[in-house]
């Protein structure tokens, strides 16, 4: 019995570790693909498939039941087939494809560009889905449906371009894989008690954006030469998108007679002269002292992100052990939130702390007569101090219900807490204005509570 439990916990931990690695690999894979494309790197099946298969191996290892394993293998084969559909015809036709091809505005290149963007989107989508750790066949089914939708888009563009008529073979493979996958998905859905839903969290998307930006900032600080490349990359991506929009508009305009005059064909593109990296690098010349501080700042941010990720994983481990102890089956369930959410919480808390500081400055300078703002700040601050000492409030608790809890937390300042609670209730719900004397008393009570709280901290340390 004991051996079985340990084995299960081990498998669970392995699954969590693999999934964490997997989601990171997905996100970086997508970023790598987009940036290597924008920087004029070579895009080929060999660029994408090895990374994909590495992820596939991790994915397979992460799943520890046979039924899941078979389903995941099929689903991943399906995704690989999909990538072939996206990239294969062009790789046969053009062995070395770079952003220069895109800028010419030629039809095959423009659709290759579109395919790359779609594949990148899929990478990021999958990364985000895995970031939510919803591992089960519901999620696999969602992935399949999304992939199918993307496939239809690519299929449409390929057909419109008419550049390659050999897309039927991968299409057939794709459909066969899809059907098998759906069969397994159906079986799994019958076994599952959870509903099926696809949710893309906006917060998670913001986190990805912030992660990429902070990662790039860090890279620039340690390697200033990269700034020029990034600048070029950004410019290339922007040009590409504008070019793409123009192409699509031209294509749409082609449906209407006489629209050629409205939208003239683009002029033949002049040979591209890349921006002088030395000139651009000068733009990013930062004095050494500032760079040092920036390095510390961004480094600190980066380390806290890693800490958040580790904290998240540790919580997931604790959650898995708790589940195991309570005998909750571990196969189809959503694990705790991923490191992305923790990063988001970290950023949100930092922003809230900053806003509180600003609010405090405002209250001190101008808002002393704004009773509502003052009382909200004072009472909120007391609640935060209590929460930091482990005395957390329930969402449904009213100030009157919180008072005994707060008095228990800081018995030496119970009278002051009672007074502030009373004034807060009057101002907050009764919209009653405080008198000058009461206002002074509130600030005095606030200062007393602050002092007592500090004393409490030292007392506990001594104990």
């Amino acid at each position, binding site marked *: 019995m004991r051996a079985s439990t340990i084995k299960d916990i081990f498998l669970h931990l392995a699954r969590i570790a693999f999934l964490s690695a997997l989601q990171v690999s997905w996100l970086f894979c997508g970023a790598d693909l987009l940036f290597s494309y924008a920087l004029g790197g070579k895009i080929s099946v060999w660029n994408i498939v090895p990374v994909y298969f590495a992820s596939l191996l991790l994915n397979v290892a992460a799943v520890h039941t046979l039924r899941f394993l078979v389903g995941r293998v099929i689903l991943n084969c399906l995704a690989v087939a999909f990538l072939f559909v996206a990239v294969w015809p062009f790789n046969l036709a053009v062995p070395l494809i770079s952003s220069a091809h895109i800028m010419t505005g030629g039809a095959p290149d423009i659709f290759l560009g579109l395919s790359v963007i779609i594949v990148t989107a899929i990478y990021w989508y999958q990364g985000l889905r895995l970031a939510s750790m919803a591992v089960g066949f519901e999620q696999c089914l969602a992935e399949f449906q999304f992939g199918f939708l993307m496939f239809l888009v690519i299929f449409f563009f390929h057909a419109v371009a008419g550049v390659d008529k050999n897309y039927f073979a991968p299409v057939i493979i794709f459909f066969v894989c899809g059907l098998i996958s759906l069969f397994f998905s159906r079986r799994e859905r019958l076994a599952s008690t959870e509903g099926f839903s696809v949710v893309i969290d906006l917060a998670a998307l913001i986190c990805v954006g912030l992660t990429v930006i902070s990662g790039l900032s860090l890279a620039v600080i340690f390697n200033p030469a990269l700034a020029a490349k990034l600048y070029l990359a950004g410019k290339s991506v922007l040009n590409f998108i504008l070019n793409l929009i123009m192409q699509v508009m031209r294509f749409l305009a082609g449906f209407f007679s006489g629209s050629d005059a409205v939208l003239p064909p683009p002029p033949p593109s002049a040979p591209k002269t890349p921006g002088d990296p030395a000139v651009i690098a000068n733009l990013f010349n930062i004095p050494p002292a500032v760079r040092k501080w920036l390095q510390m700042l961004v480094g600190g941010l980066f380390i806290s992100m890693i800490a958040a990720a580790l904290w998240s994983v540790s919580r997931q481990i604790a959650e898995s052990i708790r589940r195991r102890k309570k005998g909750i089956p571990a196969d189809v369930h959503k694990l705790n939130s991923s490191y992305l959410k923790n990063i988001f919480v970290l950023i949100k808390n930092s922003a809230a702390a900053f806003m509180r500081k600003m609010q405090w400055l405002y209250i001190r300078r101008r808002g002393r007569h704004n009773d509502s703002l003052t009382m909200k700040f004072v009472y909120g601050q007391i609640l935060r101090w209590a929460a930091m000492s482990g005395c957390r409030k329930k*969402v449904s608790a009213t100030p009157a219900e919180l008072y005994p809890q707060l008095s228990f937390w800081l018995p030496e300042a119970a009278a002051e807490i009672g007074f502030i609670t009373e004034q807060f209730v009057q101002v907050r*719900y009764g*919209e009653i204005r405080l008198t000058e004397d009461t206002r002074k008393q509130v600030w005095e009570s606030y200062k007393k509570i602050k002092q007592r709280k500090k004393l409490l901290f030292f007392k506990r340390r001594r104990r």
Partner: protein
Amino acid sequence: MPPSRPVSSQDIERINAASKKFINNVEQVIVNKEETIKLIFVALLSEGHILIEDVPGLGKTMMAKAATKSLGCSFKRIQCTPDLLPSDITGVNYFNQKTAEFMFHPGPIMANIVVVDEINRAMPRTQSCLLEAMQEHQITVDLATLLLPRPFLIIATQNPIELEGTFPLPEAQLDRFLIRLRIGYPDEQEEEKILSRFQEENPLDSLEKITNAAELMELIKICRHIHVSADVVKYAVELVRKTRLHKDVKLGASPRASLGLQAAAQAHAAVEGRTFVIPDDVKTLAVPVLAHRLFLTTEARLRGKTDEAVIADIVSATAVPIE
């Protein structure tokens, strides 16, 4: 929100004093049920109807009678039976042979306070004749609409256990009751106290009137002007809305429930001696005001879930507006 008129501290003191007198008075008959009696007074101040629901012998009718006797308003009692007709409640037009014309003989509904005992023993059509009276404070008899005296309050009692020969109240009727109260069994000491109190005479006979209809109407009007901040309104609405989305609920509380919750919270604040409503008022009243309006799903009922438990779930999951 009613147009804001500052409620003076004297007004609040009046209400506070009246509530204390009322509670003391009724407690001479009903032992140790201060919270229940306070809720009855809150309902009276909100001009809302009261449904007292409990098993036989716990003092439902006694409580209703004690409350009405304390108020000094006109009072009538209807004992519901399966053969009770709507005209027995509203009144009837009869032909007066002396004057050779039809005359209206008012029914027991024409009173400030009407105690409807064992309401679920009346047939649905008899129960339905109360709908207009409860909501619009008027009755229609033979094309004539008659206004009821103000304040108009119905205190109904029902026994939830006995099912034979009873007709469950429809949702429309339940929704018209502002609050539903349960009395509950007394503990050992309370029961001993009841016995000693009723040993020689019925304390109900010696109850004094603490107020009258005109004064009660004034107090009701004051309560309408108790301040309710926008956040507290939002909190009350959120509670009501959540009853409609709860997985165990087939039919949630109506906007009438929101109105009732706000009015009751205003009255509760006044009884507590405040000129403004706080979230605690809303929380205290959530179960009495909302629970009886919910229609639970069959699965929930089979699982043994009660409407009170659902409201308690909702209250504990709803954030109180603090920051």
